[in-house]
């Protein structure tokens, strides 16, 4: 259809939406709007994962990021009552310098891509490493120890967050 496959259309639309929503995250005044645009960005990235047949990661991405982390952000923003635009802005000079620094970083990153050639590993067709079964096999055989350590990390983070956030008992 119009010289591009449906996958390429999907990639183009998802990329355009992801970049647009990411720009809205950075440039919107109201923090609540930023959070909502970030949720939309996460959905676009999950769409990218689905296009690459990384099914498990797409679902985990939505559940963990859009379902838990963004809800945490919203709680904190509502707690601090940041609904109105009460934040002072950085000076114009700071913003321009940030833009120039970002532009130079983009220039370097894109320039580093210039000399690369097309990788010829053609894995045409849906690869099967992203399914739950295959990913689970690799996770629980080769990466068992990091998996257990990650669970301890989550426990430590939970305890740490509660201890930091406690009100002092007078």
């Amino acid at each position, binding site marked *: 259809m119009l010289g591009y*496959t449906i996958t390429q259309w999907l990639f183009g639309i998802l990329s355009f939406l992801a970049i647009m929503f990411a*720009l809205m995250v950075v440039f919107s005044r109201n923090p609540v709007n*930023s959070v909502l645009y970030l949720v939309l960005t996460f959905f676009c*990235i999950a769409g990218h994962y689905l296009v690459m047949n*990384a099914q498990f990661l797409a679902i985990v991405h939505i559940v963990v990021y859009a379902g838990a982390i963004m809800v945490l952000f919203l709680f904190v923003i509502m707690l601090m009552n940041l609904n109105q635009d009460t934040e002072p802005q950085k000076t114009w000079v700071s913003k321009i310098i940030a833009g120039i*620094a970002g532009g130079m970083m983009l220039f370097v*990153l894109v320039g580093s891509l210039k000399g690369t050639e097309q990788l010829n590993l053609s894995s045409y067709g849906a690869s099967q490493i992203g399914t739950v079964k295959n990913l689970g096999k690799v996770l629980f055989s080769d990466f068992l120890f990091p998996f257990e350590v990650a669970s301890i990390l989550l426990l430590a983070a939970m305890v740490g*967050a509660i201890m930091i*956030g406690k009100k002092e008992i007078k």
Partner: protein
Amino acid sequence: MINGISINYYLLLSAVLFIIGAVGVMARRNSIIIFMCIELMLNAVNLLLVAFSTLHGDASGQVFVFFVMAVAAAEVAVGLAILSMIYRNVKSIDTDLLSNLKN
């Protein structure tokens, strides 16, 4: 090529998302927005990891993304707890007011 899309496009997309996150960290004063831009940078790297994992047929990339998500969740929990404490003490989350260690 992944399903007809060259890997360079994924590299470019990930680079652009990373740069947008980096500019957000540099150009905003609100600590929560800075936090969200850090999450955006992490997501750009995740996307690139999954792309290369699909390209090479190696599942290690996707397992790495799994662990990056776990670490990001832990980091958000602790970071927001710290932000709440700061807000309780200073009554603001403006990063320009949090310069007690200067001088």
